[in-house]
Every structure is written in structure tokens, then in C-alpha cells.
């Protein structure tokens, strides 16, 4: 399996990359290559121009600005997996990254590549939905900032224009005592999840749920944030009953079917995994509030 011929460019700056992307039709950006290269090897994707972003240092790295974690789009999944700042501020990301492919693919794969590929089951897409992250894009026409919901256009599709490059993803961490959990079910370690669920919980001084977030992947073309479940949790005691009620709402979200897994099975997984991530997040929130 070999890719069809293409012209290759490895610009050293974002401005140069934007100019190349604006100038060429049927061009693709190469980030970590862990999804694009297989598609090119199969000739599912046959770009005439391949613009490699790996030589642009300004696109990689993790920074903190105004209390938010900002990931350059070319930051490798590996760097996020082993970052002490991420461990401190957003530990759920590292829990989720353990499910992303394998060591060899995380060494190359990037956060921006994963978001632009926008697989409905991708863990980093799920987390960006969970946090309601913001995405920065740049083209020769200028810069813009998108909320996750505006970025999420549909199945494997972001709302970026053909001449735009994703440059960064920003997530706003919760308080240091928040509870968190990420769980998914896949047939084999490293496979795409059938359904994945993530949760963040903050407890008030009386032990009630002050704030909750949930994101579910594998049900529809983009991650779901079950508003009804979150509304039920707001102000509730973190009990098994409260979590089950929230999970039952999550299990009612419309789900897709494919040749392997029915919609009903995915909804069942949504219910079970939502309950489990809420229980685990609550346990951790309780532990961290007494720590």
C-alpha cells in the first residue's frame, strides 16, 4: 500500500503554512499522521499537496494563560500524557489518554490532529467537549476563536474552512479538588471506543454537587453533553440514586447503529458508563476535598 504521488512541503512557520494552504487546491495538513497516513496508504485520501506541520515549533507545547491550559495543536499526545501540569490541573485528560491508540501512536499523534480528524469516538474530542474547550484557527484571512460546539460540524467533520489551520486548543481547568473520571468500552485495548463517558464533579462545602459536566462519545456523530442529566445533578446529594437517575437520562440519548453494535446496546453502555464515571468522580471529589 503506497500513497498516490503528492507534492510535499515542510514550512518552518505558520505564516508559510497558511500561505501554502491558501494557494493549493486539494491540499492536506500533516500533523502526527496516525490517521491521515493510513488513509493515504489505502488511497482513501489522495491529496495533491501535503503540508507537513512538524517543522513549526510554535505550534507545539503546553502553556498556562489566565488559569487555562493551552495546548498548541501540534502538541504530541505523549507530551500531554506525561505533563505534570496536566496531571495537576486536568487529570482526567491523562486517564483518557491511556486509551488513545498505543505508545507508538501517542509518540507521534497530536491533540490538534485528533480534533481535526474528529472521529466521533476519539477521546480527545470527548474531553474538549467535556470542558467546553475553545479552538483557535488561523488562515491568511486572519485568526478566529471557536467554541467547541461551533467547531463540531458533524461526523468526522470540523467547521474549519479549507484554508484554515487549527493552532491551539484551550481548556479551562476546574478547582483543584474536583472529581473526575473517564471510562470507555472497546473490544481491545487501543481500539476506538464503542461508547466513552467522562465526568467532572465539584462538591460544595456541605458535600452537595456544586457543578457537574458529562460528555458521551460513540452515540452520535459528535459527543453528547446530556443536559438533563447535568440538570438533575446540580445541587443534588452525590448518592447512587442521583447518579442512576442522571445515567438513565443519558441512556435515552438517541444513538447510532452500525454493523457491529446496535443503538440499544450503545444506549445501555451510555447508561452504565455514565453511572460509573459519576460514582468514580464523586469518590475522587470526596477524597480530594479531605486531602
Amino acid at each position: 500500500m503506497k500513497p498516490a504521488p503528492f507534492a510535499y512541503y515542510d514550512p518552518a512557520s505558520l505564516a508559510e503554512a497558511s500561505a501554502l494552504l491558501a494557494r493549493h487546491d486539494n491540499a492536506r495538513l500533516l500533523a502526527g499522521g496516525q490517521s491521515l497516513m493510513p488513509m493515504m496508504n489505502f488511497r482513501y485520501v489522495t491529496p495533491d499537496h501535503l503540508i507537513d506541520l512538524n517543522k513549526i515549533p510554535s505550534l507545539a507545547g503546553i502553556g498556562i494563560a489566565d488559569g487555562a491550559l493551552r495546548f498548541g495543536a501540534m502538541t504530541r499526545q505523549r507530551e500531554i500524557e506525561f505533563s505534570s501540569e496536566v496531571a495537576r490541573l486536568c487529570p482526567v485528560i491523562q486517564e483518557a489518554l491511556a486509551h488513545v491508540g498505543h505508545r507508538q501512536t501517542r509518540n507521534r499523534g497530536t491533540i490538534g490532529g485528533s480534533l481535526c480528524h474528529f472521529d466521533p469516538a476519539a477521546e480527545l474530542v470527548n474531553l474538549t467537549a467535556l470542558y467546553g474547550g475553545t479552538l483557535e484557527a488561523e488562515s491568511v484571512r486572519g485568526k478566529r476563536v471557536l467554541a467547541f460546539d461551533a467547531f463540531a460540524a458533524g461526523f468526522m467533520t470540523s467547521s474549519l474552512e479549507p484554508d484554515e489551520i487549527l493552532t491551539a486548543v484551550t481548556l479551562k481547568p476546574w478547582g483543584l479538588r474536583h472529581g473526575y473520571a473517564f471510562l470507555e468500552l472497546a473490544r481491545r485495548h487501543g481500539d476506538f471506543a464503542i461508547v466513552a463517558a467522562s465526568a467532572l464533579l465539584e462538591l460544595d462545602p456541605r458535600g452537595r454537587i456544586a457543578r457537574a459536566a458529562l460528555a458521551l462519545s460513540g452515540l452520535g456523530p459528535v459527543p453528547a453533553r446530556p443536559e438533563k442529566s447535568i440538570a438533575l445533578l446540580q445541587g443534588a446529594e452525590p448518592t447512587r440514586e442521583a447518579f442512576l437517575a442522571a445515567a438513565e437520562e443519558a441512556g435515552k440519548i438517541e444513538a447510532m447503529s452500525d454493523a457491529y453494535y446496535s443503538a440499544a446496546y450503545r444506549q445501555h453502555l451510555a447508561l452504565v458508563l455514565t453511572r460509573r464515571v459519576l460514582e468514580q468522580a464523586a469518590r475522587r471529589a470526596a477524597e480530594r476535598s479531605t486531602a
Partner: protein
Amino acid sequence: MTQKRRIAVTVNGTRYEREAEPRLSLADFLRHDLHLTGTHLGCEHGVCGACTVLFNGHSARSCLMLAVQADGQEITTVEGLSPADGSLSPLQEAFHEKHALQCGFCTPGILCTVTELLREVPRPDETQIRECLSGNLCRCTGYQPIIEAVLLAASQLEPGIKDEDGRV
């Protein structure tokens, strides 16, 4: 721009200068252009892990990289894991000892992956080894002897100690 590019790549400590078409994979470059056929190609779409090499010290699937991306970079293949005198590295010895290969097709990729693991986690437990090996498919052994070999190699290593060439 589809024409060939001149690239300089350091593989196992030797610098090679060659011309490469942009679509040439790093794996094919290693095998066909440099005749380093120790790196095996199984699926050619990033699933089997047979083509794993160390790219600037980190394991990566060479079927998912382009030769032109290796310009100016350092690569270690299975040929670079053993000492120059042709003897086996401690990890390779352990694979021999524990019969951790049968057909041997997946072995080069597994050795490269585990070499990186042992550099970063000198005393991995069985779960860590299994997780690490999830990216390498082996259809012969059932993995058990491979895990035993990695545990054996790890037990023989002083944490953080490598030989003079940085081999584990």
C-alpha cells in the same frame, strides 16, 4: 514538488544521504534504499506494529512516516539494538532465553518498543508490559513468553544503567 528530495538520515549511528520521493514511507526507505531489512512490514497502515523503529529515541510506526520526514533525524532499527560485535543485547538474550519468538516477524518491532519502555520504566510490572505490547501484534507466542522475557531483562538491568552505547 513531487520530485525527489535529498535527505540525510542517521540510522544506527551511520549517516546516509539519499534521494527520496515524498510518498516513500520511512519503512520502505529503510528496507529498500538502505537495505536494513530487519524492520518488517506487516499491515502498512499502523495496526500491527511490526515496523516500529525508534525515531529520535521514541518508538514510532515507520509505515506511517515519510522518509522525507526523517531528514536530519536519528533512527534506531533492530539492527542497532545489538552490540557491534554481533552479540545480543540483554533484552535480545532474554527473548532467546524465554523463547519469546517463534516465526520472528513481529520481533523487531517488539524489541524496539520494549527498548523504549525499559529506558523510561526500568522496572515495569506485568500490566505495564502488556499495555506497552498492545501496539504490537504477535500471532505465534500468545505473548506470555514475551512478557516473561521483558520481566527477565528488566530484572537483570540496573535501573537507569545502559551500556556505553545507551543500549538497554
